Each structure stands twice: as C-alpha cells, then as structure tokens.
C-alpha cells in the first residue's frame, strides 16, 4: 500500500488560523464546498428507499464508502448493507443541532473534495473514486495529520460511521454480547408516576424511615 508522505503544512494554514469554534475552521471549510476539482463526480450509490434526512446523495456516498473501510466483510459479522450504516448515520445526524448538521455536511464535502485532497494529501480524485487501500491511506492521513483540525475531522467522521454500524443489535453476536438482561422487558408493564391525585407506587426509592434532619 502506498501511503502518501505527510505534506508540509501549507503557508497560512497554521493551527491558529484553522481552529476556530466548531468542528473545522472556516477557511478550510470553504475549500470543502468549492474548487473546480470538486466538480469531478464522486461515486453514485443506491439511496435508502425512505430518503435522506440530513445529507445529500454525494455526502451519503462518502459515508457509505467510509463505512466499507471501517467494517470489512467477515464471517459472523453483518455487512454494512445489512445494517444500513450510512442511512443510520443520516438518522443519527438528524437528531443533532442544525448547526452541527451543517458542520458534518461541510466535513463530508471536504473529505470527498479533490482540491482539498490535493492541498492536504496530494490526491486529486474524490474520496469515493479511490480504491479501498487508497481510501485507508486517506483516513490514516487525517488521523495522523499534523493539522489538529484534520484529526478533529477524522474523529467526528469516524464516530458518526462507527455509531451507524454499532448501534445495531444485529452486531451483538459478532462482539460476544448477549444483549440486555430479560428484566428490561418488564418495563412497559410498570406504572409511571406523574404526581397529582394518584398515590406514589411503593418501591426501592421510597423512604420508610423517620424524617431526616
């Protein structure tokens, strides 16, 4: 595998200018959305039948590609298609703050973008058009970058995709986990006290002793 050598930090892209509030600095994010190399098409993937809530088809394709590097086909492991990892990531993102959703969309654009890839790692093709080992090298580049902002982006992207896969109970057997104990199944039949006229049900939390000083 040909791992690109880390490139020197481009002039002006110091940590101070890059790290602002939020996931990524504004200057770098601008590169995520523009640039002629970005116009080269990324890979197209089948979209979920029930649509996307947060991400565009192109952003969805990046999540899908990353998920296939995160989880390799293995006996006993559900595939990323069976779990629907990129769709699950979209659903997770649907619950976060709108401002955080915007940052995630920018992050995926930057990650995919050939121009940003060229500035930061020497590649010009979109991430989704790279071969698997090349994609692994890009991920490793971000992970090990001397730019803190790329390490931040790697952490955010990885967390989203990991959560998209491992949220599924279908992965429990693969990691040797039997799931929650059966006692949890009693939950729906239990009372829920909301005060008012109903008496508080007795239970472990009710104090039967004398009033405490």
């Amino acid at each position, binding site marked *: 595998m040909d791992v690109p050598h880390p490139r020197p930090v481009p002039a002006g892209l110091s940590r101070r200018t890059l790290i602002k509030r939020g996931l990524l600095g504004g200057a770098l994010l601008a590169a995520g959305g523009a640039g002629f190399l970005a116009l080269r098409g990324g890979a197209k993937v089948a979209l979920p039948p029930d649509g996307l809530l947060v991400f565009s088809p192109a952003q969805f394709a990046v999540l899908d590609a990353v998920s296939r590097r995160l989880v390799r086909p293995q006996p006993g492991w559900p595939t990323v298609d069976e779990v629907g990892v990129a769709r699950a990531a979209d659903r997770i993102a649907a*619950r976060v*703050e709108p401002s955080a959703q915007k940052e995630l969309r920018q992050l995926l654009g930057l990650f995919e973008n050939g121009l940003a890839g060229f500035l930061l790692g020497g590649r010009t093709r979109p991430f989704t058009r790279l071969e698997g080992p090349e994609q692994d090298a890009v991920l490793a580049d971000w992970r*090990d970058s001397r730019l803190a902002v790329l390490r*931040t982006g790697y952490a955010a992207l990885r967390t989203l995709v990991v959560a998209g*896969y491992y949220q599924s109970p279908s992965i429990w057997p693969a*990691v040797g986990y039997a799931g*929650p104990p059966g006692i949890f199944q009693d939950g729906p039949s239990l009372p829920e*006290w909301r005060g008012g*006229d109903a008496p508080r049900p007795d239970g472990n939390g009710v*104090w039967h002793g004398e009033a405490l000083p």
Partner: protein
Amino acid sequence: MSKAGRILTGRDHRVATTIHCDVVVVGSGAGGSVLAERLTARGLEVVMLEEGGYWTRRSFDGREDHSYPRLYQEMGNRATDDQSVLILQGRNVGGGTTVNWCTSFRTPRTVLDHWREQHGVKGLTEEALVPHWEAIEKRLHIAEWPLDRMNANNQVLWDGCGKLGYSRGLVRRNVNNCANLGYCGLGCPLDAKMSMGVTLIPDAVERGMTVQANASVRRLLVGNRRVGGVEAELLDPETDRPTGVTLTVTAKTVAVCGGAINSPALLLRSGLDGNGNVGKRFFLHPVVVMSALMPEPVAPWSGAPQAAYSHHFIERGPGKLGFLLEVPPVMPLIAATVFPGFGEEHQRLMEQLPFTQTSIAICRDGLLPEDSGGTVALRDPAERRVSIDYPLRPFHFEAFREACKVMARIQFAAGAREVRSLHSRPVRIQRQADIDAALDSAPWEAGRVRVATAHQMGGCAMGADPRTSVVDSTLRYHGMENLFVVDGSVFPTSLGVNPQETIFGIARWASQFVAAATG
C-alpha cells in the same frame, strides 16, 4: 396538608403559560434535586425545570442506541470544540444521577482545605458537611459494595493493586436491593439505583413540587440586583425540538442547577458574566484509558460498574496532576467509538470485547497554581450548543502517560496478555518490560489519544472575591440578592473523587441560604 404536585412534559402546555412560586430550580440533577427536596421540607413552593425528558424504568430498555439520545447531553456525543475530550453528561429528570455509576465519596478534606486557603471559601468545612452527608447516605442507602460481589472488570484493578502494593479501596454505592446487573449507565431497570428521579424528586413532588421536563431555560429575568424568574422554551418530548410554547416562571428566588456546562451558559445568555469569571475555571477530571486482553472472560458490561478504586497516585508532588484509578463499564457501542482503528484491526479489538478489561485514570485538575482549566462560552446566539474549550497542557500529558504506565502494570500484574492504549494508532504492549519504552514514545497530543470525562465541575467558582469568583460562600451570585448557583459548577477546583456526593452535600448545606433569601 398540601397535595402532591405534578411531573409534566413538553406536551402538557399548548399555549404560553406563566406560573408563580417561591423558588424556581433550573436543573434536576444531584444539586437541584437535593436543594428542591430540602426547600419543600421547609414548606416552600418549588418549581423544577429540566431540559431533558422524563424517563423511568418503564422506558429503560438497556439499549445503548436508545439510552444515549434519551438520557445524555448531545446524545452522548458532547465533546470539546476540537473533539479531543469526549464529555459524558446526563440530561434527563434526575440528571447525571440517572446514568452515573453510583460511586459515592465524601469530599476529601484536603480539597475543602484548599478551597478555604486558596479561594477564600468560608464555612464549608468537613464539620459543616458531615450531618448532611450522614442524612443523604441514609436516605440513598450509600454503603460499601461487598468484595464478594465485585465483577471481573473491577477484580483486575483490585488484584493488580494488591500484587503491586498500591493502596486500594472498595467503592461505596447509592443502591437499594441492587441485583448487580451493570446497566447503571443506561438507567436502572429495578429502581435499585438511588437516583434523584426515584428518591428526592418524588419526595418533593409528594410535598407539592411541580416538575416540568422538556423545558429549556433560555434566560433569567434579570433586574436590578434581583432576578424575577426564568423564561423557558418547551421541547417536544419525541423530537427534542422547540414546540414554540414558552413557559415563564416568576419566583422569589432562582436557583441555577444545570451543571458545570449549562449553568455558566445560562448565566452568560442572561448577560451575567461575573466580571468575566463565568465559564472560567472549568474542570473535568480528564480521563485516560488502558484496555487489556485477559485470559478469562471479563464481560465488562456485567456487574456493578465501579467496585474498586485506588488513590495511591492522588498526590504526586508539585507540578503534577494526581490521579484516581477506577474502571468503567464497557458496552459495545461506546467501546466501538473509543477503541481505535479501522477495518480488521478494529474488528479484532471488538471481537475480544468479552475478554477485555478496561481501566481509567481520573486526573485531578485545578489544584496546581498554574492550572486554570478550560472555558465554557457561548457560540453564535442562534446556536443552542455551547462552546467548550479545554486546552490539554504538558502537565496533563505527563499525568496521562504516567497513569497509562501504572494501569498497564496493574493489568499485567493481574494476568493481562496484552495491554493497549487508546491512541488513534493504538500502542499495543505484550510484555511488562516494554511498558515504559512503548508509552514514552507514543504521541501525547490532543486528538491523538482518547481523553474523556464523566465529571464536569467549575465554571461558576465560589470564592470570597468577586473579582475572581462567581458565587460567594453561600452560593449566591455576587451582587445579586436572590440568585443562587447550586451544582458542581461552584467547585473552585476538581476533587479527585467522583463528584456526586460532594454535590449532594453542598446542595443540602446551601439549602439553608436559599431558604433564608426566600423569606
């Protein structure tokens, strides 16, 4: 005499509503609940507002994918702005007490002494706190967890410390009829955990307190030296988005109890910056982790999460952060996000989860003179997220590195086959003799090693001097007659022990001042 109050959710008001009471308590965690219970015991009329939802064992299902979004801040994904520190923090009726691991320590005397000597805190002595600790320990059944019920995950720390001659102790837990399941972090299905949601909150509701869940307090109604109440937006219990309905609560006294991140943020949104001190001196007991592959099954999700601890390294001399050693429960989803790597390497680590022991070192920040901690600040006003900055400095990394070495030694002493750091490129060590070299050469830098926190403290530091603190020694905001902050945000430093019992004790002690201000 007075009839019971109600526990309401975001769906229970369809139109803008204003209610009046003696004391409005913003936040329902360890601080707000203890305070509210004491105030109702004095006959005061209390309204408690909580941004998170009302979840009980009726809805707890032990699933990580459901529990983190329901019960934790930002769905369990809260982090510093640069993502270098993962922040686990509760957000629900009961706050952190619904999801914490039940560990209960009294405040170390050395910390109380430090607060008095270095921060001018008056009256908050061990003698003043003991009666409150005794009462709360009785009410919450706080007792040492027996050694013969310790799970395998804790046993590694216990045995390893024993073999190496490190001091060790048994954790005291707030549980009643605990079945040793291990799901404390996802909500107890037996109500065996003596969380606020099953103890002091319903106690106060029985005396007439109203609890409003899904109420996001956006600002305090600040007047001249007094606060008139608070204004909240109601959130939809399902989507967590604003419903458009506002709730205004006017009160004789306002108690802000949102914890070390949300309390400073509320003060800042209300234009109260405490001479620039609000949001400063923010501490979080930064945690580093070592995992170990053991020869026998560990099942780190099973059994009381925390049963053993070691304070052997809590005092390490000038210029160094001390650390407390404990273990965390580990379930698949959280493990997958914090275990490093990609592809097959990551999958191998995950397959070994049943045989994986995990230890944590909780670093005591804020006691060194040069340690001013992090900062909680507002972002753009349109944003609901706050900005959380916690710069990792050389003294942090020195403590992280040495703590990882200590944990590795303990794990090997207890029989580990391999130990691993949580660097983004994991350091894997097979032999005791390789520990120092492997960890000395690892990259100790933000974003290259997983750092986490489950303890958030400071941001509204108490102290004598309004130029350097936010609240006085009665937890009253400097310069305001009827505004109090009652939660972990008032700590001038971190503690070096899990904070819940300190928050209980301080809140119970401070309830006298809040009551006196209410008249």
